[in-house]
């Protein structure tokens, strides 16, 4: 399994992509694969504040219900509303169409607490 090199990863299996002051977050393809077919996601509200490594939502698959932990702190500016109707995007395109939320990055130093793709690959293999 390969994970995009331009992302940072948490040990809770979330990813973050930083573009200027905006961070896009989602769950990794490894997490989606382990969960199996995802049937429901509870998205955060726009305007809510996320704290690094704290829970911000719930994802439910045919196997299990899991908490989502934010890889980064910041205020939610946008959520992927398509996931409400098509949670399967989390399985089919975890790093693209399956993104979960965009947040305004509170502290870029937090990225240092995350892994790069190689380290995440090592964690999950």
């Amino acid at each position, binding site marked *: 399994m390969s994970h995009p090199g331009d992302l940072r990863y948490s040990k809770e299996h979330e990813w973050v992509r930083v573009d200027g002051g905006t961070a896009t977050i989602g769950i990794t393809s490894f997490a989606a694969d382990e969960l*199996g*077919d995802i049937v429901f996601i509870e998205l955060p509200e726009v305007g809510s504040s996320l704290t690094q490594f704290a829970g911000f939502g719930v994802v439910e698959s045919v196997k299990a219900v899991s908490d989502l932990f934010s890889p980064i702190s910041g205020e939610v500016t946008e959520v992927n509303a398509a996931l409400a109707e098509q*949670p399967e995007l989390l399985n089919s395109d975890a790093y693209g169409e399956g993104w979960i939320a965009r947040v305004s990055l509170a502290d870029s130093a937090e990225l240092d607490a995350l892994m790069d793709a190689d380290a995440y690959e090592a964690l999950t293999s």
Partner: protein
Amino acid sequence: MSVVDERVDASGRGAAFASPEPGEALTIVEPLVFDHSRPGRRAVRFPVASDAARAAGKGEPALPASVQRQEAPRLPEVSELELLRHFTRLSQLNIAIETAFYPLGSCTMKYNPKVNEWAARLTGFTDSHPLDPDELAQGSLELQWLLAELLREISGFAAVSLQPAAGAHGELTGMLMTRAFHRSNGEGEQRTKVLVPDSSHGTNPATATMVGYSVVTIPSNERGGIDLGALRAALGSDTAALMITNPSTLGIFEDQIDQVVAAVREAGAIAYMDGANLNAILGRFRPGEAGFDVMHFNLHKTFSTPHGGGGPGAGPVGVSERLAPFLPRPLPVLREGDADAVRANAWAGRETPGARFGLDWDRPQSIGKVRSMFGNFGMHLRAYAYIRANGGDGLRGVSDDAVLAANYLRVRLADAFDLPYDRVCKHEVVFSGRRQKRQHGVTTLDMAKAILDHGIHPPTIYFPLIVEEALMIEPTETESLETLDRFVDVMHDIARRAADEPEALRAAPVTTPVGRLDEAGAARRPDLRHRFGPDPVPESTEGG
């Protein structure tokens, strides 16, 4: 979906064959009862009111027009025989403990002996009413009092309430009592956290959250027990309780339980034991004696009352002295007579002259009622019959045999599947299908589906969450050695096929009434409502 094409077969009208779409297996399904419906057909005909009765009503409708429905409900119209066949066929599509081995981990799917059903159908009980005055309900009250006494003895707790209707309801009752206890000590605001090991039942954190507590997860150690260091670090003056499932969902008895309970009590918190796995420890471990404050029983698991398909269950709670004032009310009590004599006589099958039972409502610190009337009384009857039929030695034998059966499967299947916690287990054993997944791309789900092709209900899968590709097997004590051996053969065969013909396993099951179901589709786009087609043409003659 396939188009259902109804044909007549040798068994009579109604068995239907679905025309398969390309790539879909032929399946035999039972149509909805509405599809059997023909206008005017009846199973029961109600008598027509006599002219005299109509005249007495003076033609006035019994209900005002505003609350009368404008069109008749669309109920199925079928003969009694068709109805009987419909439900008999549906029942035959099921796998049940009475038709097949059912090693569903965490559920204790043991056989419910028929003597329990005899007891539950005694007309002295079935013809009584929960609102009967105490003097007309002495037998029912005595039974509840005696069952609570038996559960007290089995668990070592000071007092028992039979009210909660199921295991999770018992948990809720236990945590409401926990909250009431801390409030009564002036610590209600201060104690806000409930600690839950990651090997606990999923209902434990859910219950704590429902009662308003925040949940702190305690990790397991490498042996599958609780990480004592992490527990001690998490305990403090803000801890309301520890909720521990013991034996855990790994089927492992917590061998540091004395230290766990001591640490919790030292922190001023309540020690809650989830008793769902009590079938492993009857006559061997009494949680009340070990210092726990509260535990729920699952009568429908440990004491054999039937379950599956939604119950009904029964989840009595046992409590320590310090929680007893908070028990739900009313409690069945012995009003007149000597408790020791009443118990001794009851166990000998004798009545105690002059003994009077009643309901104690005068419990000012009680959390109140948690269930209408007195709980699921039919389950109390069955559990009482089961406990009395086995006796103390018998119950210990139940647990010993349940543990022996699980360990037999653990040892005999250890060559075929990974065993993440390779140690003597209690009533259930948790394997991992990770070897089959990594080496052959066959998941635990695929193997569970393949088990169905052998006429066996699959074990619990993907639980507990701390085991990858988990396969959780609980054989219970009611299976013969031959059944266990056959299961071992089936599992070895499936492990071999995972290596030799993985594609075939991914297509399983193939012998069941319906094949692999689209679980994700069912959850994402549930279709739960029947939509009526055009009205069928009335038949010229009735009956068939």
